[in-house]
């Protein structure tokens, strides 16, 4: 015996967001929004700290005159500021993905907005991808630093 709606049943996805799932998404979006705002504030404080640090280093270098240590510090100050800015830029992208995920998920749940729903999960995927790449980069950098330190120590001990 065939049912008239059997083709419909086979073609439609059986997964559907229940009321409870929508409630979980709403709460996730709320906390995600809070975390993103705190993240933006921390990045702003980090930017201020980076600029004041580089200013202090440059002032010390200018006051130090011909002291080689302060000259070295002055030359490193610029690189340090660049490094801090790169780290802050990566953090900004991550926080931005978090913010967009939370904003779109909230809109999707409250207004039953399908494009916002798709956008939210795209941003969530991007968020996890950037975290993953950042973690892999951190692990590789840490391993390289360890290998370099080990090579330096064995080299200096053998001499």
């Amino acid at each position, binding site marked *: 015996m065939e049912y008239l709606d059997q083709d*419909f049943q086979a073609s439609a996805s059986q997964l559907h967001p229940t009321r409870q799932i929508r409630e979980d998404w709403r709460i996730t979006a709320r906390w995600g929004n*809070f975390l993103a705002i705190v993240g933006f504030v921390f990045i702003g404080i980090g930017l201020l700290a980076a600029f004041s640090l580089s200013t202090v280093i440059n002032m010390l270098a200018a006051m130090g005159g011909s002291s080689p240590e302060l000259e070295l510090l002055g030359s490193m100050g610029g690189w340090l500021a660049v490094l801090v800015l790169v780290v802050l830029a990566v953090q900004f992208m991550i926080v931005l993905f978090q913010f967009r995920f939370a904003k779109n998920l909230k809109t999707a749940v409250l207004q039953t907005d399908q494009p916002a729903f798709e956008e939210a999960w795209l941003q969530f995927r991007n968020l996890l991808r950037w975290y993953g790449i950042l973690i892999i980069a951190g692990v590789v950098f840490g391993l390289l630093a360890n290998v370099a330190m080990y090579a330096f120590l064995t080299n200096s001990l053998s001499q």
Partner: protein
Amino acid sequence: MDNQNQALDADLNPAGETPSGLIITENIRQYWTESRKWAMFFAVLGFIYIGFLVLSVFGISTMGNAGIFAGVFSLLIVGGIVFVPTWLIFQFSQNLKQSLASESTPALGLSFRNLRRLYQFAGIFMIIILAIYGIMFLFMLTFLSSRGM
């Protein structure tokens, strides 16, 4: 008697929409598939980190009673802080995988329940960190004002 002239699928949306109105499209399934793979990667890293932590605690505990105390204390604090999000992200990934493979809505619900808990944990943890910063700032202000600076 029911209206015989209305279409059989009149109560179903033409696009096969669910009562909630949001559809899980093929794009969303792809985003979820990639997201749950990254989530599993983070969970595995977290478990490896906890494994190293347990090994280091065994190492510290050979240094006598103070070592055992310090080891157990750090295991409870650091291990607890790391274990909870690791477990939640593992559960999120595992349930999402199961739900996508077997079209199971209860597994989907469990998956997003764990994601919600993960965000709640991160949010509450952030509030505690902010509170600690605030208390430290107040202490610093009190200390400076007491020194007449």
